[in-house]
């Protein structure tokens, strides 16, 4: 009974925390873009516009929901949920902190504690593409269809690089458990970013493609495809796509921090209390989140075939080479045991 309560509490707290961050990200996106463009951004709803995501959410709920004529109704309604869910589920395996001791119980700060966490999150990120494909296909709109097709081709080609870079980290730490990966990099000197700089760079770039973010946002591609896969969506279903996108950004940022920057470990303070650890993870993830925004509002967008060429001809060979080299090093250093 107690275990169940703890599990429920953890689910509620971590989910709520992530959705809040995703909501705040929508505000941050508008604020950061505004500062980059000589504007103020939202500043009317609450101090600093902090309640803007709430107001937006309310607005979305009250908007009329349109289903285009000839759309596959079931798929059309299902797709946004399919897009948002995998991103949220991935959060379940990411350790957000060390362990807390409450009433004599040691509680690890992650939603679940499965030892194949990496496999779980890879399968989840593979699922995330369905929401976009189905949304594009079910809309019965040519622009949406093109967007959905692009998304599928793009996500499949970038998934591979993403997996291969993660595998290099897994090889180094010798475990598929994200907790073990964190435990292996408690000191700044042990961070994987120093041992896997190439994998880190590739992972960071691939994150953008995986989340469909600018400069790889071909599925949306406003100037040519109008809105891509979500052209026909309105109301809360439209918002769900965005929630999914921001959740995916948050989760991947946390993942990048976990894999390469030691997750919740605090630099130069190994005995830091658990809440400092959580803040440390947030700060590291915040760096990546800011990177998402920074790139989005600075760079032009690549063309679809250029992205594919980059993915298959540059990133994939590099990731394979990196994996090979890592494997060789691991085999030679640990092979003797």
């Amino acid at each position, binding site marked *: 009974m107690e275990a169940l309560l703890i599990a429920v509490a953890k689910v509620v707290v971590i989910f709520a925390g992530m959705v809040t961050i995703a909501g705040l990200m929508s505000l941050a996106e508008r604020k950061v873009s505004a500062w980059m463009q000589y504007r103020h951004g939202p500043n009317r709803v609450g101090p600093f516009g902090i309640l803007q995501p709430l107001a937006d959410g309310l607005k979305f709920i009250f908007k009329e929901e349109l289903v285009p004529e000839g759309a596959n109704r079931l798929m059309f309604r299902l797709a946004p949920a399919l897009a948002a869910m995998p991103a949220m589920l991935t959060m379940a395996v990411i350790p957000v902190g060390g362990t807390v001791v409450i009433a004599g119980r040691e509680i690890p700060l992650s939603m679940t504690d499965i030892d194949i966490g990496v496999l779980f999150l890879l399968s989840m990120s593979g699922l995330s593409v369905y929401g976009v494909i189905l949304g594009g296909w079910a809309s019965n709109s040519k622009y949406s269809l093109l967007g959905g097709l692009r998304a599928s081709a793009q996500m499949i080609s970038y998934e591979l690089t993403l997996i291969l870079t993660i595998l290099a980290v897994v090889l180094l730490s010798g475990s598929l458990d994200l907790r073990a990966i964190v435990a292996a990099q408690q000191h700044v000197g042990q961070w994987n970013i120093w041992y896997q700089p190439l994998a880190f760079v590739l992972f960071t770039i691939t994150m953008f493609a995986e989340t469909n973010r600018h400069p790889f946002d071909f599925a949306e591609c406003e100037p040519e495809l109008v809105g891509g896969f979500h052209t026909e969506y309105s109301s809360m279903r439209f918002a769900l796509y965005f929630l999914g996108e921001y959740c995916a950004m948050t989760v991947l940022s946390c993942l990048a921090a976990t894999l390469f920057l030691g997750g919740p470990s605090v630099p130069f303070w190994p005995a830091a209390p658990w809440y400092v650890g959580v803040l440390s993870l947030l700060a590291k993830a915040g760096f990546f989140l800011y990177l998402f925004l920074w790139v989005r509002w600075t760079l032009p*967008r690549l063309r679809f075939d250029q992205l594919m060429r980059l993915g298959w001809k540059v990133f994939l060979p590099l990731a394979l080479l990196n994996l090979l080299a890592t494997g060789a090093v691991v085999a030679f250093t640990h092979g003797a045991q």
Partner: protein
Amino acid sequence: MTTTTKVFEYTPGANLPPGDDPLHGELMTLNMGPQHPATHGVLRIVVTLDGERIVAIDPVVGYLHRGKEKSCETLGWHKFFPHTDRLDYVQPLMNNIGYALAIEKLAGIEVPPRAQVVRVLLMELSRVMAHLIYVASQSIDLGAVALFFYAFRQRELAYDIVDAYTGHRMNNTYVRIGGVYADVDEQVSAMAARFVEEFPLALDEFEKLLTRNRIWCDRNRDIGVIPRELAIAMSLTGPALRGSGVEWDLRRAMPYSGYESYDFDVPVGSVGDCYDRYLVRMQEMRESIKIVRQALERLQTVKGDVLAEDRRFVLPPKDKVHGSMEELIFQFKVVTDLRLPRGEAYHGIESSKGELGFFIASDGTAKPLRCHVRAPGLMNIQALPRMAEGRLFSDMVSLIGSMDFVMGEVDR
């Protein structure tokens, strides 16, 4: 000068894959516009796609047709000025001047030297403002959103100058037959002088963000190549022609308003792709600033009236109208009953988009016989199908942006 005629073979849909090719199934017809984020107004393009590849496109113009040329025939010569503002609405003063020049040619009016300097100043500021719109829209279409705002901010500074001078940001209608409505005062020339100093720095900033940006190059280089001969055959003008390596600038070739006495370069491209057109426009802005600087210097020395003294065609100064019966009658006659000499005239100016020409024909009455606008944007659209064929759908955005047309002028 000799001219040669060359026929360009063109079969729409020549790239069509054979029907039994298993890799290429059905073709898709995609209707782009007239309401579409990338079509710059209300251009409609019917795109035939084979997957992501463009088989053929068919631009449909006319969604912004307001009968401007016909309006001139019913309104009369003088009252058409406000309508020229609304042709290429990102450079209203340039259109004003083009129209005024055609009328002055037919009526044989000598424009005072100071008015000519003021006109050059206005034309070059307009060119900068129009090219800034190009940079802004091209970069937002290719995804560099921040640059859109940077460019618009600079454009806003230029608009402030025009606003201080004419009292309007857009649709100024400040040019009159025989000159301009009022003189440029100290405040306006001080603002312009500041702009001339600060704008090149902003331009450097834009170039830092774009010119050597790998993604920007990938999206613009070797896309929409117009060979030299094709550009001439399509009667392209302006940056679209100069991007293809043809050094043809009306300010040089057939100078007007005293352009022959200004020192400036005519930048030309080499390949004729979107990137060349981008470089040409960026360079043109710098050259325009150079001309503005010279015009500002001349304003210090060239003094005098800014309106010709010709009561048959030119409005009398406003202060005299309020005090004198004769001038009031002249004013009334010019506005309501302006009669140009019998005959016809054509005058082309180098607008930001190319050769903007006004052809006017008069039968000697107050009702214009014909007024035709040669809109460079229409020719630019004409080149689109040749550029788009065989390219990817995403390239449509680069192509539309780089041809830089304004539908107000194309449809008229």
